[in-house]
Each structure stands twice: as C-alpha cells, then as structure tokens.
C-alpha cells in the first residue's frame, strides 16, 4: 500500500501526543510499517505543535512535507489554517472550531483572522469542521478533544470500531476509559 499520511496539529498542551499514540497502536495492529514523529521540549510550551503519522508497506521519512497529507486533524482553528499547504490534492482537513489566541493576538500585535472556516472552504479546502470542545465536555472533560477528533477521523478509515476500541483501551488509563470511549463515539457520530 502506498504510504498514507496523517498530521495532527494543535497548541502545545492540548493532548495531541495521546492521539498519535492511539493511531500508532491501531495501525501497528494492522501490520503496517509506521513512523510517528513528535515534538518535545520548548515548542510544547503553548506553541504551535505538529505530529506526523505515516503508515504503509514501507515508510522512509519520519515527517510529512507540504502537499503530502491525506488527513490533517487540527485541535484548533488557526492551527488548521496554518497547515493547509501540507494537504495533498484531495486531502481532508478535520478541524476543531475552538479558538485559542496566540500571544501576538493576546498582546494586540496581530489579529486572529475572522471566518477562517468559511475562508478555507472558499479556498477549496475539503474541511470537516466541528465543535469538538463541546462534545468533549459532553463526554465529561474538555481534555477529551483528542478522542472526539479521533472518532471523527475513524469515519474516514476502513477499520472496524472494535479495533479502534482496543487501541483506545491500550492507550488511556482505565479510570478515564469510559469517558474517552464516549468522546470517541460522539466524534464519530457527530
């Protein structure tokens, strides 16, 4: 199989590492060659973060470059807009509509662009926008945005639900399992 590329983007501290861990577990179980590239250290401190997940028969580069992502899963709307160049033709952008102001906006040195979702759609980007934060809160925790978005991504993957569930069970602590499963289901069915 030709290598598939999934980018997970967001703001440091939003929980994107758990999402990539979950995807890695899921895809390893399918027998693929996989590479998952993460960001640690300084850029994690509230900065723009990106994780690359690649799978197929043989994966070489650990990173995804411009024009190569089959999917971008964004935890925040501005971050979704930041990375659109990385989508390949026909690639899909799944975006949480949550707004988190970056420091230049907070201190008034820059503006948070208005109507980003509409602008992305107008630019011909295949955008699937959702209020993942509300669904996460409905599931029991605003921290479950990652599972809501993974639920949404699962709609586009030809992988049975029970395999996703097994990967979730292997990735989250038992205490939070039910809440995370609920968040996943809400994302998948939204």
């Amino acid at each position, binding site marked *: 199989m030709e290598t598939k590329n999934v980018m997970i983007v967001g703001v440091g501290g939003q929980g994107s590492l758990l999402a990539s861990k979950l995807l890695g577990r899921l895809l390893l179980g399918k027998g693929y060659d*996989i590479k998952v590239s993460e960001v640690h250290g300084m850029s994690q401190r509230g900065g723009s973060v990106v994780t690359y997940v690649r799978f197929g028969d043989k994966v070489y580069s650990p990173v995804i470059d411009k024009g190569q992502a089959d999917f971008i899963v964004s935890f925040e709307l501005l971050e979704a807009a930041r990375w659109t160049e990385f989508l390949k033709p026909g690639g899909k952008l799944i975006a949480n509509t949550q707004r988190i102001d*970056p420091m230049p906006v907070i201190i008034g040195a820059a503006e948070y662009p208005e109507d980003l979702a509409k602008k992305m759609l107008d630019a011909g980007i295949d955008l699937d926008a959702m209020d993942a934060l509300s669904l996460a809160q409905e599931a029991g925790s605003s921290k479950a945005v990652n599972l809501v978005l993974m639920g949404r991504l699962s709609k586009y993957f030809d992988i049975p639900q029970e395999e996703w569930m097994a990967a979730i069970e292997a990735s989250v602590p038992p205490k939070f399992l039910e809440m995370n499963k609920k968040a996943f289901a809400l994302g998948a069915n939204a």
Partner: protein
Amino acid sequence: MKQLMLGNEAVARGLYEAGCAFVSSYPGTPSTEITEAIAKYPEVYAEWAPNEKVAMEAAFGASLAGRRSFCGMKHVGLNVAADPLFTLSYTGVNAGMVIGVADDAGMHSSQNEQDSRHYARAAKVPMLEPSDSAEALAMTKLAYELSEKFDTPVLVKMCTRVSHSQSVVETGERVEHLKEYQKDIAKYVMMPGNAKRRHPVVEARTRALVEYAESCEINVVEEGEDKSVGFITSSTSYQYIKEVMGDKHPVMKLGLIWPMPEEKIRNFAASVEKLVIVEELDGFIQSHCRDLGIQCVGKEVFSCIDELSQNKVAAQLGKDVVSGTKLEENIPPRPPVMCAGCPHRGLFYTLKKNKLTVLGDIGCYTLGAVAPLAAVDSVICMGASVSGIHGFCKSQNGAADNKTVAVIGDSTFMHSGITGLVNMAYNESNATVIIVDNSITGMTGHQQNPTTGFNLKGDPCAKIDLETLCRAVGIKRVRVVDPYDLKQCDEAIKEELAAEEPSVIISRRPCALLKYVKHKAPLTVDQDKCVGCKACMKIGCPAISMVDGKAKVDATQCVGCGVCQQLCKLGALKEV
C-alpha cells in the same frame, strides 16, 4: 515482539539488551527519553547527574570498574563533557562505554545548531549514526562490541527526527557482560609520560577502525539501476533520499560515520557518473570525500542551515514538488509561551517593571525574553547568567550593580551556576543572582535534580539545600520570595540591588504543571468593573484575552494563581 518505539526508547532497549549496568545522564531535548526509558529496567542502575561532564566521568568510572556504561546528552551537553571525552579517547575503556548524543537540526529546542559529528573526528572516537528506531537499538548494542574490541568509548549520534520518531523494532533478550577491574597505570593515568605513549595507540586504533569501516555491515551499499548519479548519506537524510528516489539510484548509507571508509567510498564514487552527498548540517561526509580527492556535490545544494526534508531534497534534485493550498490570510505565529500559572511570570514582570538588565539562562524561563515581558537581555549556555553578570558588573565599576540581575533555574544552577557564584564570592562581585526554583527541571519535561529530593527513579533521596549552598560559597545575603506575590518580589529585588554586597534571591514556587500542585478555581472577570485598561495583559498570560473591550479569562487554562489580580486596580478579576 514487534513494537513501536521512539528512537530514544530504542537506544534504551539496546542498552538493556547489551547488558549495560550503569547510566548517568543530564536531560536535554532531544536526548532525555533515553535515560527516562532505561530507568524503567530494574537491572540497570540509572541516574540524573548534575551535568554532562559529571555524567561522562561517572560512566567512565563504571567502565573502569568493569561494567558496561552509558551517558546521554544533547549536542550542547557534549560541549560540557568534551574535557573527559578527549582524554577517554586516550585511556580507552575496560568494560564497554557508550556516549549518546542527540543533535537538534532545526533548533526545535536548542540555542545552536552544532553538528556533533565533528567531535568524533576531533576526539578520534568512533561514532555510529542510526537512521530509525530499529537501527538505534541494533547500533547501540554494536557500539558496546566496538567499544570493547577497539578499546575506546563509542559515540551514538541521534538527531531530533530519529530520537523523537517512533518506528517498528523487534526486541531481544538481555545478555550480561561483566569484567574485572585491573590496575593499569600506564593506560589510565594520563600524565604526560603515559599520554605520550597512548597517543600513538589512538592513531593506530583509528587506522584499525578505518579497516573495519571498509567491510562492516552498517556501511551499506544499496544498488540501483540508474548509475548516472549515486548518493552517500547517513541518518535521517538516508530516509529522505529513499523517500524521493526509491531504489532507482545506488545509495551508500554510512552507519559508522567516523571514521569513514576510504576504498569503499572510492569504489562507490567510481561506480557512478556523479556523486551527491546528502547530509544534514555541515559537509562532514563531503569533506572526507574531498580529502580523498573525490569530486562530489553536497553543501552547494543542500544547505548547512536547518533540517532537510523530502521536499527540500526533491527540489534540489530537480523533482517536482507540489504544495497544497496556502490560505491567503495573515496567520499570526504561535510561539511558545510561559504556561498559565507559571511561577516565572510574576518574577519577570517585576524585572521588567524595574527596567533591569537581565542576564538569562537555559530553561523555561528563557521565555521571559518573549513579548510582552521581553525582560531578558542575553542567553548563551547553561550557567552563563551567573558568570556573565560578574563580568558585566565588574567591568562597569559599580555603575551596573543596582540595575542588573542574573536569572537561572534550580536545575541549571546545579548544572553550572555554582562555579559562577563561587567566582562572584571569591572576586567580590556586588551583583544579584535570582535562582528561579520551580522544584523540577521544567523545559525538558519534569526531570528530578539535586534540589528536588527525588532521584531519576522517583525515589526520595538527598536534597541539596540551595540557601545553605549559596551561603557556604560565601554569599551572605540569601533570601526566598514567592513569585506569585508581586509586592514581595519587588521589595526583595529593590533591597538586594541596593545592598553593597552580592546577593542571591531564590524565587520559589513549584512548576504549575507538576501533578502534586493543587490549582485554585479559575478567575472570572466582573464585567461591570472591567474598563478594558489592559493592565492584566502586561504579564502575557495565555489565559487572558480581550473580548469586546473587556478582559476575559479562559477557564480551561487559568489555574487561579492570582498574579493578574494584583495588577487590576479596579478589582475586576475575581475568585468565583
């Protein structure tokens, strides 16, 4: 069993399987997880040392005693440990000794972009360079064999993309390797007479390693039908060239990046019409080829600045690169910032308010240089704040004494701030040093250090008392402040700057991200009282923004630290 592992975890697994018994490291992105992962194997003694020099010397001690040992560090850490490295090259080892060093091309979390391969050449020590997790595991084990066979410490060089990428590995069993300690003055006591006899041994070893490089399994030639061009590469650059070119052209991948083979490279160069060297950062392989008189292209096309990627490689090789749709919109950048509730914030606000010159250091608090605080004047390397302020103030003959401070974290102070403070006491500075003690090594992801009272494995252990330590080196004025209390910070800084002798202020409060730190309820804004004056915005807290002319607190981020409350003269920021 097949599993996904970070490159760093794979190094740790390699250490485990190779029978490594002793690990001493200092954390540093992107190397930290090697040592965190090895700490989970009960068979291996593992510790955080106060700095990389101590770690390397401790690892040497274990090797001398007959136990396979390891020390891990980031590229700039190898600068700190360079002193023992160059002489360990002369002594060689007893049991195998491996040094892990992780470069950070692209400077994701570093202050420079140095290429550590130069150290292998300069110290005349072999260096292995894995290109994924499976190789990281295998090469770590091989490094011990080479260390013992060639009687040398061996460097395993990682980089951000290998360290922090998970890929598939197959694990094996642990095999113990124990040696006896044997006294050998001529080999291990490096005074001139002995060192003179060891230098020729080092040169002979390098010649033997070149022989090994000619035929070793980790220097691979992958054949390709189209010989109009051939590539020599290593590490993650190998992955990029394979991604772009597949199996079309011949590729030589050097797993042993120092010393490099000669005949093997000559033969490869002769087998292709054009030789292209694909490597990140400096032209290290290219220089070697040039030394051999081989014509090649490398740094002329692949920049020595920043990371490579498949698109960069493809573009330089004349391949089409198609980008996705770029949004025609001004997308504001999102630089890293101090977290909501970060104890450093209140302190840096006070420094800015007093218009002080601040010599900064390496850690989360380097972010004090970012707007709107913008309260840091210099950051060089670990410890440079304390040493630097001494020179800054001394050279100004007292004119800078009451408007300059050094700021250094607890872990960084332990790493290399102490000697600077000794210099201040000994040479009678009148400067003020602030130790921002957040009770953890924050930036690298919460590692314990000598001031926290816990060791790498999380067990309680001896705790270095900062106040006692500072007094012991001769600083009489040592005081502690709570950085959440702006008035207390302001008073302490004014008083210590005014004092006619050196001072240490310890700004103490645990990192807000530590699990044991209890957060207060998020604050809210009284809409009737807020007039939108933006006084609360001066601290650059990511939880506060202005919406429709009034302050708004993001309840998902706010931890109720109360620093913003102290700035609001109208009492608009309230506890619920």
